[in-house]
Every structure is written in C-alpha cells, then in structure tokens.
C-alpha cells in the first residue's frame, strides 16, 4: 500500500497539471490515494461491503421462509423465531430484507456499469465529432432529459410485465444521458489541450485518441456519476415498487415491502415498515456519500 507513495508525484516529481492523466497507472494511483484518505469514501465503501455481505451471505446463515404464504404466522411482532417479526403474509421480515436487497444491489451495480459505459462512449464520441453530428446527437440526449426519468419508467412499467432484467435495461436506457452530458463537456475541453493535439499531430487515429486520451481523462467524472447511478436506480426501483408498479410477486425488493406502509402504520404494525425503510436509506446514503466524496476529490484534483 505504502510502496507506491513515491510514484504518486510522477516520474519528474511533478504532479500532472490540471488533473490530466500522464499515464494510466500513475493517474489511478493519485486518484485512489486521495480516496483511501477520505473518511467519507472509506466509510461509504465499508457500509456497502456490509450490505453486500448482509444480502448475499446473510441468507446462507439465517435461513427463513421468504416465499411461502403462511397466514398462521401473519403480522407477528419481533420476537423469538422472527427477530424482526413477520408481514401480513407470514413471511419473515429479516429474511425478506436480505433477499429483497439482492435484487436492489444487483440492479444498482448493473445499471451503473451499463449506463456509464454507454453514456461515456456516446458523450466522448459526440464531443469528438463536433459540428452538426454533435448537435443532432445532443438533441436526442436533451429529449431524454426533458421527460423525468421516473415518469418514463412508470409509463413503460404499465405497458409491460416487468422482471429484474427488463428494469435493468429500462433504467440503463433512461440513465445514460446524465453521464453523457458531463463526459461530453469534458471531452470538448480536452479536445483543445496540447497533449491531444500533439497526439493528433503524431498521426493517432480517432479511436486511439478516444480510448487512450479521452476515456481515461474523463474517468474522474464517470466514476462519480456511476456511484450516484447506483443510488438513483436503487431508489427508482423502490419508488416504483412502492407505487405498486414494480415487477409482480414473487419478486421482492425493499420498495415492495413498503407498498402497504401507510396502512401498516395505522394498523399498528410499524415493524413491517421501519426495517425496509432503514436499510433503503442506509444503502442510498452510503452510495451518495461515496459519490459525494469522489466528486470532492475529483474536483479538488482538477483545480489543484
């Protein structure tokens, strides 16, 4: 860990100017070095790790009924046998929390990766092309940004019967424009920089400039948006399920557990509401915290 400390300042002992990445390994070391020293980022990562363990390893240790309806056990308060109680179908809440979290986390990571790849490439290509092509490509992005993601999500979810895969595809389709705009703006400014012009003068192909210079130099941007995308898509799925428009049962996620939240509160079953609410908030908060910390690091590095 400490051995690469000397490499941080670069071969000449000078940090690269303006957040520019001199070579791949060097730049990543600088960035991740700052990340390792950020309490918020490290804390966020720790919480995410715990959540992953809870959702994916938890069910191996804590075995409970998370599918079969058992009305004899319905609405049991937290106590022996059911640490967090049971819901109105007699399903163990702790067990459901773990299983529900699996789909939320899988969705979050999948959407973040897919939308970042699509958005970053689209934005970089659009920015490099410039001119009429860029203007046309950006109006497509503007159109998708003009209609709130959540509204489009609701429309499509009422047209088709959803599954986890279709929701991942849908959210990817709706999330990439956000990454795209930021990456394009960065590419537009990179295009005029000396090292890119030098590369062009030396006869680099557009492909080489795209993958060798543009993509690595926008890394700081899309790592931040990717983290926010995890939080946003987990939230979007839970809101959709909360409104009763998510994938049909037996699909479980934290939002579905809250669909009857208002009624549960009035009927005196608060334990059916709070656990899912708390895990959901912790998850979204952890990813936002990481994103925020990475954003601070990235912007501090670019103004350094």
């Amino acid at each position, binding site marked *: 860990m400490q051995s690469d400390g000397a490499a941080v300042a670069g071969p000449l002992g000078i940090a690269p100017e303006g957040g520019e990445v001199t070579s791949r390994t060097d730049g990543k070391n600088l960035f991740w070095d700052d990340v390792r020293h950020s309490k918020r980022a490290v804390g966020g990562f720790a919480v995410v790790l715990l959540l992953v363990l809870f959702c994916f390893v938890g069910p191996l240790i804590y075995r409970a009924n998370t599918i079969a309806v058992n009305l004899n056990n319905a609405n049991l308060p937290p106590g022996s046998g059911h640490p967090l109680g049971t819901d109105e179908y007699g399903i163990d809440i702790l067990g459901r929390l773990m299983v529900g979290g699996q789909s939320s986390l899988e969705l979050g990571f999948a959407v973040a990766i897919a939308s970042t790849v699509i958005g970053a490439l689209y934005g970089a290509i659009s920015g490099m092309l410039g001119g009429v092509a860029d203007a046309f490509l950006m*109006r497509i992005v503007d159109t998708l940004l003009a209609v*709130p993601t959540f509204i489009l999500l*609701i429309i499509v979810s*009422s047209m088709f019967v959803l599954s986890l895969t279709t929701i991942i595809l849908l959210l990817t389709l709706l999330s990439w424009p956000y990454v795209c705009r930021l990456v394009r703006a960065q590419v537009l400014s990179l295009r005029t920089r000396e090292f890119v012009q030098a590369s062009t003068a030396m006869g680099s192909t557009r492909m080489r400039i795209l993958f060798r210079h543009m993509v690595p130099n926008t890394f700081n941007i899309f790592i931040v948006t990717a983290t926010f995308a995890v939080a946003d898509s987990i939230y979007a799925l839970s809101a959709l399920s909360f*409104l009763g428009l998510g994938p049909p049962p037996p699909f479980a996620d934290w939002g579905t557990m809250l669909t009857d939240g208002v009624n549960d509160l009035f009927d005196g079953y608060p334990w059916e509401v709070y656990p899912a609410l708390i895990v959901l908030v912790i998850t979204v908060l952890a990813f936002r915290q990481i994103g*925020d910390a990475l954003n601070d690091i990235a912007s501090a590095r670019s103004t350094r």
Partner: protein
Amino acid sequence: MTWFLVRRVGQSVAVIIGVMILTFILVHLEPGSTAKAVLGLKATPARIALFNDTYGLNRPLPVQFWLYCDHVLHGNFGISYVAGQPVSTLIAQRLPRDAVLLGISTLLALIIGIPMGVYQAMHHGTVRDDIVAGTWFTLYSAPDFMEALLLIAVFSVHFHLLQPNFPGGISSVGGLFTDPNALILPVVVLAINSVAGFSQYMRSSAIEELAQDYIRTARAKGLAERLILTRHLLRNALLPIITILGLSLPDIVAGAVIAEAIFNFPGMGLLFWQSALAHDFPVMLGATLIIGVATVAGNLAADIAYGVLDPRIRHAV
C-alpha cells in the same frame, strides 16, 4: 444576446419535437392494438377496421405522426379509456391544483433553504455547517416516501394532529383550502425534498461570493454585517438559484407523483399514477408531453433570466 436567444429557442423547439416523437413512439409501443384497448377484446374485425379508419391508424407512420402533431397542437390529446373524457379536460382540471401545491411547497423550500445556505456559508468549515449539511444530505438522499411515511407515523398515527388523506370530491382550486389541515403534509414532504438542493447550492454560491473583494471592501468600510448580507451577498449569491429552479422541475414532478399518490392529492401526479395502474395510455402520454414541454420551458426561462439578471454573463459562441 439576440443570437444566443435565437439559438436557445431553436434548441428548445428541437427538443419539444423530440419529446413528441418520443411520446408517439410510446403510443405505438403499447402492446396490442389501440382499437382492441378501446373497443374491448371481443370487438368484431369490421368494427376494428372502422375504428382504425376513423382515427387514421391504418395510414403510414409518418402520416400518423403528422396527424398526431396536428391534434396535439390543437389541444387534442385523445380520450381517456377510463374516464371517457378528453385528456385535455382532465389535465386542465388538475394543472391549477398542482400550481397551488407545487407553488406553495417550492416557496416554502426557498424561504427555508436560502437563509439556511447563507448560514452554512457564514459558518463554513465549522461543526455547525457540517451538522446542517449532514441533515439535509440525509433528507435529500432518503426516498421521498420515507419522509411521507415518517411524518404520517408521527403526526397522524401517534399524535392524531394531521390527516394523511386529502378529502375527495374537490372540484375547484379554492376547494383545496376547505381543509387546510390536509394540505400541510403534502406541502411539507415536497418542500423537504427541495430545501436540500436549494440550501446546498445557496451554500456553495454564498461561499464563493464571500471570498470576493467587494465583500471585503464592504466590511472594511464598516458596513453592518446584516447589510453586507442583504444588500451585497444575497443579490449576487441568489443568481445560481434561479437556474436551479428551472432545472429542478423534473425532480419536483417526480416527487409530486409519489406525494400525491400517498396523500391522495387530486393533481396531475395522482392522475398519472391512477392512469398507470389502469393502463390508461392517452392520459399518461398527454401528461408526459405537458411535463416535457414544461421542463424545456423551465430550462429556457432559467437560461434567459440568468442572462437578463446578470449583465456579467456574456453569451458568446
């Protein structure tokens, strides 16, 4: 400035055409035929053919798109499958109610958020700033329905102070105020979601302005801190908030769907949600078009207002 205006309006028109193409595509994505959806699954082929002929559904797609644009521009968004009324009527009834709800909550959010942001900027880097920032960050990150559920748990279930359900049968905008008690929770939930954004933008904008020379000059000539804040700082630091107001419209709309669904508030959000549950596509697509146009208009207005209010902004290019 003129060239900037022309360019910006041109872009907005292009985006609005884009939104129309998008809703048109969505109309045709709908599984099964429109005729069957309207006439029922047992409709005879002859009736379906007649329906398709009447509504131009058997014409080539470009012609259909032209007809669709023609209808939309004449304020015809189709007929709701469920209510049997024109979509434009349903939307026109609800838009003013949303203007009231979203107007009050946004105003409340600004009244709380702006002083909060300035306070944080004044105490920038201290524990006080961290505490306020942390609180808003948590509330902002938490799902919209969390605040709603928690407020209901405290004020409705526990203390029986506020009702969580808007009374039904409201027919006019004035009717919203017959029971002001019922307005409190929806307004507060929507405001909480906006305050976080407003106060954090206000904070960073005020921190930037506080470092400027004119503030130092004002302090050096012995101006009271209160006057520095109101006369010098606020005027300059408020500018970015105008842009944020225009840009936050999509978030406000998404929040409204959830809040209206929870509190049974008779606005566009509730209409949209109920249409989604009932697969009432004409209503959903009509509403989407309106929201899209409102968003584009909001962004444009924010851009123009920014240019007009801040003479330093020179819209070159």
